[in-house]
């Protein structure tokens, strides 16, 4: 399948990011829960090729960070000893350095936890949350949309009116109202997934409306009538003829909903209503940015936020490409111009 350049990059970004998150145990140098109390808010490690005598080392190395006694979270490099970067270290990790040096690729937080590791492990929960909520949303949407579209009349009216009521509440307001349904502090993350399922359930309305539309037009088609003429049952018609017509709508809705629900988790956790400490998630990584001193002094805490941008951009690109693609080959050339 010939893909335009942008969507190739986008797919690559998605595969890369999801892959790294999936294999977080391999790609992250440390366990996300391990605290280094003596190194709070350590900046990202500096990787050197030239030592203090300006000699080149082929293998990059780091210096150990020593906390300055004078002030909080001020560090200096101890240049007395080099710690070369090690690959494929014991414990099944890709990257590492010998103790007591640390390789904090994007620094540490207030408890000295490696942000990079927390970002990768946290991504698991965030992505899983997004997938879980999307699955529930689509599942409910398909069932209710199919029932409304296929059986019509008062059932259709009832379901669509209810959908309208759900849709009239602004999405984030609804999100928070639903969030209130479960207790304030949720641990462990298993229960959080339950929360995401509930959130997904509440988001049934938009997919249901779209699917209902497809079903309405599909059920009038002649081949459905023909199958009915052979004595097909309703269930058979839905399964074999009608629902497959909705497949492209379902796919494009998935591409919209997954990033939306990931974002929902991020927002909830940011405001302290999502994944609880000490578990990491993308949202509660950003939560530290609510403190003034963090914003002011520790710029690397912003990096997880910036890292999310390419992921969402990739999802958007894939979505617009899919929309153009499913609209037919004529529109595919437009895609290059659209972006």
């Amino acid at each position, binding site marked *: 399948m010939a893909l335009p350049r942008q969507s190739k990059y986008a797919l690559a970004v998605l595969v890369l990011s999801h892959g790294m998150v999936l294999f977080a145990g391999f790609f992250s140098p440390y366990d996300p829960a391990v605290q280094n109390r003596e190194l709070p808010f350590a900046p990202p490690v500096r990787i050197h090729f030239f030592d203090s005598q300006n000699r080149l080392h082929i293998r990059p190395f780091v210096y150990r960070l020593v906390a300055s006694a004078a002030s909080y979270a001020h560090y200096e490099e101890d240049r007395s000893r080099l710690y070369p970067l090690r690959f494929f270290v014991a414990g099944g990790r890709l990257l590492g350095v010998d103790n007591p040096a640390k390789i904090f690729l994007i620094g540490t937080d207030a408890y000295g936890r490696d942000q990079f590791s927390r970002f990768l492990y946290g991504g698991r929960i965030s992505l899983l949350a997004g997938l879980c909520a999307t699955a529930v949303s689509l599942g409910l949407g398909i069932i209710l949309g199919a029932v409304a579209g296929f059986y019509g009349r008062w059932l259709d009216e009832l379901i669509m009116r209810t959908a309208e009521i759900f849709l009239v509440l602004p999405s984030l307001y609804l999100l928070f109202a639903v969030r209130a349904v479960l207790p304030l502090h949720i641990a462990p993350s298993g229960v959080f997934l339950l929360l995401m399922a509930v959130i997904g359930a509440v988001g049934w309305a938009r997919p249901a409306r779209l699917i209902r539309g497809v079903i309405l037009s599909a059920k009038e088609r002649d081949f459905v*009538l*023909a199958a009915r*003429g*052979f*004595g097909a049952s309703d269930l058979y018609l839905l399964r074999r003829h009608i629902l497959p017509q909705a497949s492209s709508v379902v796919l494009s809705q998935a591409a919209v909903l997954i990033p939306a629900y990931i974002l929902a988790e991020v927002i909830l956790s940011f405001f302290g209503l999502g994944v609880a400490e000490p578990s990491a998630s993308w949202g509660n990584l950003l939560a530290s940015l609510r403190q003034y001193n963090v914003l002011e002094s520790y710029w690397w805490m912003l990096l997880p936020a910036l890292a999310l941008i390419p992921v969402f951009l990739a999802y958007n690109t894939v979505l617009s490409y899919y929309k153009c693609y499913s609209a037919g080959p004529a529109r595919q050339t437009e895609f290059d111009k659209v972006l």
Partner: protein
Amino acid sequence: MEDGWQLAGQNCWSAAVLEALHVSKSYTQGRWYSRKKFSIAALNDVSLKIDTCSTLALIGESGAGKSTLGRCLSGLETPDSGEVRFEGRNLFTLPPKDVRAIRRKIQFVFQDAAAALNPRFSACDAIEEPLLIQNMLPRKERRRRTLETMEQVGLSIQSAPRSILEFSGGQRQRLAIARALVLKPRLLVLDEGLSSLDFDTQARLTHLLLDLRVRFELSYLFITHDLRLAARMADHIAVMQRGAIVECGKADALFAKPQHPYTQSLLQATPG
């Protein structure tokens, strides 16, 4: 349980296989809860009879209600009033368990074959589908009968696994007819089923249908505006105008001496 065609024998020329009695249908537009509706009368007190082993051609201009009548007679649509009796039993008041068996015996070929076949299916799937739905025959048997029927309509078996989209218009029409034949029905309703075909294919299919009818207990209802086709195929003719039957009778007699002015005008309009 009857499965397949009975050889043509004494049953032919004896009873009517299908009878329509005072069938009326109108289409209404409007929401289910509002009172004002807008209605169009499609069928107005139509009665006709199709004999066993015979062909009835339903002719008339477009919009006369031929398709609607065809669908009602096949059980695809429900008339507002009147009865449709198949083998003596009212189609629309059958107990649920008999509906399926009866459905097997009346088959409908749509006018637009392309729309009547699910584009996502392969040719083999499409023709096999009725057998699947009716839960007849083990799988090997189904396959065999599907391919057999394909051959009968003149499509090569090699093309069986291909998607419907890869077939031409004429071929799709043949697929639709094959699909209708695969259940070996007693009555086949063709809604302009042969009109869009080229001369060769049309000739071959009319030959096939005539042949089948001679050998087995099979009846046809031909809905067409092509009078020549009707003349060739039909034993009886019914003429429809604006939802009602204006004239009905044996083909030769009708063509020789049309009684109703509308029939006369129709025949005059046709060359040869």
